[in-house]
């Protein structure tokens, strides 16, 4: 399951599938906020969600003449609300709007190639870093809370047949952490500390598993997860605080395009959705 999946259809199974991700992310948010108060304010979260809804509704209507199911926009909005940290309101709205807009602006062969939230977050880091940061050190450090989130998240990605992506990434992260420790001389625990925190939980469980922005083959997805960890490794050696977001930003679209080129060369594509 992913932060940005949306499904069309109205049978109960489809409905359940459609709302699993919004429900899960809402539950995690509620549990975290009630336990730890992870949100600076509900106002910031609502700003992100509202901006996400409006952008999705208006852009889809403007470009395609129809209204769109907003469950995907809800997830992007709530993700921006969790991930962006700023005392100001507008960075939340801007992140949500950039996330949604990227789905319409950057498309290749009829599908968007960036995970919307990842795109929005990276744009905020690149262009508005003096106004906002990204969740990295909040959310407590209680072992039970971490285990609950990991277990619920991993069960969810397992049911969505995405467990292999998270597993490959996590194993790769631990491996590259060991190499980094060897290179930098810092303790191994320091190198892997981040993955026990909330930012990585969201990243590993929800962002890199997004069906809309991952390649189609199982092996391909595992290679992509490994490549994300590899690029992150390089970025971390360059002391990029938010290396995983940048790594996914760089690797994800390249993988999607390469897969499409490969597929196009070997057999004609049959499916297509909205295109610009």
């Amino acid at each position, binding site marked *: 399951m992913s932060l940005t999946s949306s499904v069309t259809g109205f049978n109960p199974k489809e409905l359940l599938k459609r709302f699993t991700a919004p429900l899960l992310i809402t539950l995690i948010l509620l549990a975290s906020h009630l336990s730890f108060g992870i949100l600076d304010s509900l106002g910031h979260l609502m700003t992100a969600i509202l901006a996400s809804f409006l952008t999705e509704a208006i852009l889809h209507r403007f470009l395609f003449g129809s209204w769109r199911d907003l469950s995907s926009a809800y997830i992007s909005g709530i993700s921006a609300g969790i991930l962006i940290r700023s005392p100001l309101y507008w960075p939340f709205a801007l992140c949500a709007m950039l996330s949604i807009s990227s789905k319409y602006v950057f498309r290749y062969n009829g599908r968007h190639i960036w995970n919307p939230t990842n795109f929005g977050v990276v744009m905020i880091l690149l262009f508005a870093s003096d106004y*906002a940061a990204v969740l990295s050190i909040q959310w407590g450090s209680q072992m039970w809370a971490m285990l609950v989130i990991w277990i619920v998240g991993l069960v969810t990605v397992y049911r969505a047949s995405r467990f292999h992506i998270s597993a490959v990434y996590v194993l790769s992260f631990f491996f590259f952490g060991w190499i980094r420790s060897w290179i930098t001389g810092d303790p191994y625990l320091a190198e892997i*500390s981040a993955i026990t925190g909330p930012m990585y939980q969201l990243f590993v469980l929800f962002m890199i598993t997004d069906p809309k922005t991952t390649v189609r083959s199982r092996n391909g997805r595992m290679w992509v997860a490994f490549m994300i960890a590899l690029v992150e490794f390089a970025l*971390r050696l360059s*002391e990029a605080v938010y290396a995983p977001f940048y790594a996914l930003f760089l690797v994800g679209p390249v993988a999607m395009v390469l897969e499409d080129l490969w597929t196009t060369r070997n057999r004609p594509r049959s499916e297509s959705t909205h295109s610009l």
Partner: protein
Amino acid sequence: MKKTAGWKKIVLFLFFAGLIATPALLREVEERQMGERGMDRETALQRHGVWLQEVSRDVGIDFVHHRPTLDPLLEHIHEQVASVGASVSITDYNRDGFPDIYLTNSRFGASNALYRNRGDGTFEDVADSSGLARLNEEGVGVSMGAVWGDYTGNGYEDLFLYRWGRPELFRNLGNGEFERATREAGLPEWINANTAVWMDVNRDGYLDLFIGGYFHEEINFWNLESTRIMPDSYEYATNGGRNYLFLNNGDGTFEDVTESWGLLETRRWTLASTSADLNDDGYVDLMLANDYGVDELYLNDRGERFRRAGEESGLGFVPKSGMSADLGDPFNRGELSIYVTNISEPGVLMQGNNLWVPSGTRDGLFPVYRNLASSLGIERGEWGYGGAFGDLNNDGFQDLYVANGYVSAEPGTDYWYDYAKVVGGNRQIIGDARNWPAMNGRTFSGYQQNKIWINTGSGSFREVSTAIGGALSLDSRSIAYADLFGNGGLDLVVANQNGAVQVYRTTARPDHEWIRVQLEGRPPNTSAIGASVTFFWNGMAQQQVVTAGRAFSSQSERTIHFGLGTDPELDRLEIRWPDGKQTILRDLKPNRSITIEQPEN
């Protein structure tokens, strides 16, 4: 699927480009609004009503703070652990009518300083002869701060010194000398404290003492038994130092009532404290700024115990890095707001400072606060420490000075990446100093300029530090105000970590009038600590309180200073004494200092 029309694509891309450009456009607007860099004295006085001049050497103050050395096990992160200890507290210790300055040092063998104000614009360090100099020694620890208060009731301000080590109490003998009174007082043997405040919590007239613990009290930084000394969470830490509340028995001894007064319910990392009667029930309350967690507000329950009210009041829910707590009345509404500094580092951590403005009560019990720092423009600090209100330009609206900067080391280097990769992790990892990457001389939120936010009087503040001659980029910690030179301006002392103290002589616009109020309390609380003074003029009311401990590790002079602006129409002065009695004064004249004694009845 149909193709999208070309013009729609153009609109879409323009929209997207607009989104991308938004931060740059906002930045441009902000810079134009800021606009003003350095300007000359006359222009600054005309435009902002104030000019600052750094005069420390000229007036005989050459104090340099040295950070502590620590156990070799912490060598790799020494600078970030040994990052506090520069403090300033101001009082008139010898009752000659001139405010004196006490500064703490933090390295074994380095002396603290007591600068006696000669009254002619110069100072001399008399700490040695007073017995307040050589207080940083192996076996007792190093100074972190000090607060003055007449706990004996003899009319002279005594000194409580808190350390990473053994806290000390010094009785003011009234002849310029102090004698240790620690042992008979019954204070703890060892604490790692960074804040303390004198206050009369039970209204018996004797000053009681709150001490806030930062690192756990079992840690001896020069003989570590374990490296598990770091916070177990960056935002929800539960392993901070113990807080203490000591009731003054009136005979030189104190009773530890921390538990029965409800202050042992949490183990947060308290870094700052201040007190005042915030819910107008006649008893002083306690505000704590906690690093690595939520701040706490304790309401005094009729002098019998404290009750936690942070969450109910709205200010104790979102965890940040509380570094300082100060009280002010920035809107001239006759009520106290609370300013708490936190940490902001562009692109990494954006907590923002908080201005908690009262907005009513809940259940008739709890004062309710709203954070208006953003709308007033005083939210975006940096790595904040002391943040304190004071009307620098005497225009009648309290301004705000905020100290910034953590560790200024090798220029061009940065420890944030290493810090960020660790602090997001589980408690088992971050709680152990061994797991922290070595700093290797790198800068960590260093070389940050302090903020001087001038209150425009119309619901906003304007940052003017460079424009008015107050630009300072040392690792500032503690700040205190006093009219050091007797010219009706609030002068400023800034204590800097591992650096020289800075003393700013303040010149306010001459047509801005002022009045200063010195309260003489009835013994034993001759300091009148806890008294509230509200001045009414021009249809406005500004409340200030006499505190003994405010902001970060600091204490400003006890005299209350009101700027009044131009041609003020003075109405009255209302004083609420610590015992709850009230004094109202009318027919006041501006530009003078008045002394008011607490009436017998």
